[in-house]
């Protein structure tokens, strides 16, 4: 029985993979790969950093990376919205640290931090779990961590760890994570939470959503200034059948269709297991 269930799970994962592949084709057409290139390059650099080096060398390399990230984040609104994809476990801590850094920079920029302060914030954020990255803990000694920076990094850490967890934990969709964070009232600084809410889409790229039409799809583009109305690629029709033809809906251009609810990947898999979504194409 267990084995049977196990096999069924594999099939579902395979189906999800099929959907992901289609999704990637859409993505390539819609987005330039430049942002992902930068993200991946930075990720590769920090992964290679655990090799013993002088502290000063590590510090300079990290500060240069943070500079590059600040520049990219300042000019690219989409950067924050790309890293919802899966990460291999061996890369997890690096991807997570990079995400915490990006979110922190974004919040710092929105709060009007000076360039120097953002740089320190970004640096402290990227090394917030330096021990797990194989980096020496005394790297942070040369920098003063202001209380506000600590708060920003704490919020960014929790947000990313919930929405983009290692494989042994289930992910919580951004909508639910942000709602929980907001409901903690003063446990997280409400001003910072508001900034995070403005900076992060509740439905980032890659998230599954159910529309008011009962169709199910994946967000393929977050529209600037209209983060609640992203562009969605529809995969499943209201009856639960996979669509043969691709269908893209830009919710910012369509006032009659809206997002009814966000769905997690686990929920999509469960729907497939329970035959709410057909496992084959109509």
């Amino acid at each position, binding site marked *: 029985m267990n084995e049977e269930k196990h096999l069924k799970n594999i099939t579902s994962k395979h189906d999800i993979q099929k959907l992901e592949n289609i999704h990637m084709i859409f993505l390539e057409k819609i987005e330039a790969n430049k942002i992902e290139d930068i993200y991946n390059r930075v990720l590769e650099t920090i992964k290679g950093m655990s090799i013993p080096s002088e502290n000063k060398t590590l510090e300079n390399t990290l500060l240069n990376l943070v500079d590059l990230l600040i520049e990219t984040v300042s000019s690219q609104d989409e950067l924050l919205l790309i890293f919802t994809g899966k990460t291999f476990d061996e890369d997890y801590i690096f991807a997570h640290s990079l995400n915490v850094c990006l979110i922190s920079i974004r919040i710092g920029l929105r709060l009007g931090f000076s360039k120097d302060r953002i740089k320190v914030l970004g640096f402290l954020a990227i090394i917030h779990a330096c021990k797990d990255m194989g980096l020496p803990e005394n790297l942070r000694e040369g920098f003063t961590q202001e209380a506000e920076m600590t708060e920003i990094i704490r919020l960014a*850490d929790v947000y990313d760890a919930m929405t983009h967890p290692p494989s042994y934990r289930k992910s919580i969709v951004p909508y639910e994570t942000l709602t*929980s964070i907001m409901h*903690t009232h003063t446990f997280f600084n409400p001003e910072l939470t508001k900034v995070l809410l403005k900076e992060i889409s509740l439905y980032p790229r890659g998230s599954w959503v159910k529309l008011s039409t009962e169709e199910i799809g994946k967000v393929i583009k977050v529209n600037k200034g209209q983060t609640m109305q992203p562009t969605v690629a529809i995969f499943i029709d209201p009856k639960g059948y996979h669509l043969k033809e691709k269908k893209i809906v830009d919710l910012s251009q369509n006032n009659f269709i809206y997002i009814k609810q966000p769905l997690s990947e686990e929920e999509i898999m469960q729907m497939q297991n329970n035959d709410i979504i057909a496992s084959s194409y109509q």
Partner: protein
Amino acid sequence: MLFGKKNKILIVDDDEDMLSMFFSILSDYKYNVIQAKNGIECLEKAKKFAPDIIVMDVMMPELDGIATVLKLRSDEQTRHIPVIMCTAVKDSEDEILARNLGAVDYVRKTPQMEDLLARIERVLNQ
């Protein structure tokens, strides 16, 4: 602790052996022990019994320990309850995260309970 009034402790672990070990040792000690075997049950029992402290495993199916702490924090009835996280594997990012979520302590599971008992006492006396 008031005379004759035992502190209520909620133990959350998906491993039943662990749960019964915790139960027998802590009950023998001087606590009223309530058990929950996952995060969802923890949230229900935290509301129902208003424990003085929660000792919770990090890795659990359904709702894991980390997500449960956030849920506890976001509920008016449970946000003040101190939480000690227990883990089989000590991972410093998980510890940072647990503390960022307001967990008061993060300990490694060992068969020796003295350390955990001391930590529980320290939190309850604060």
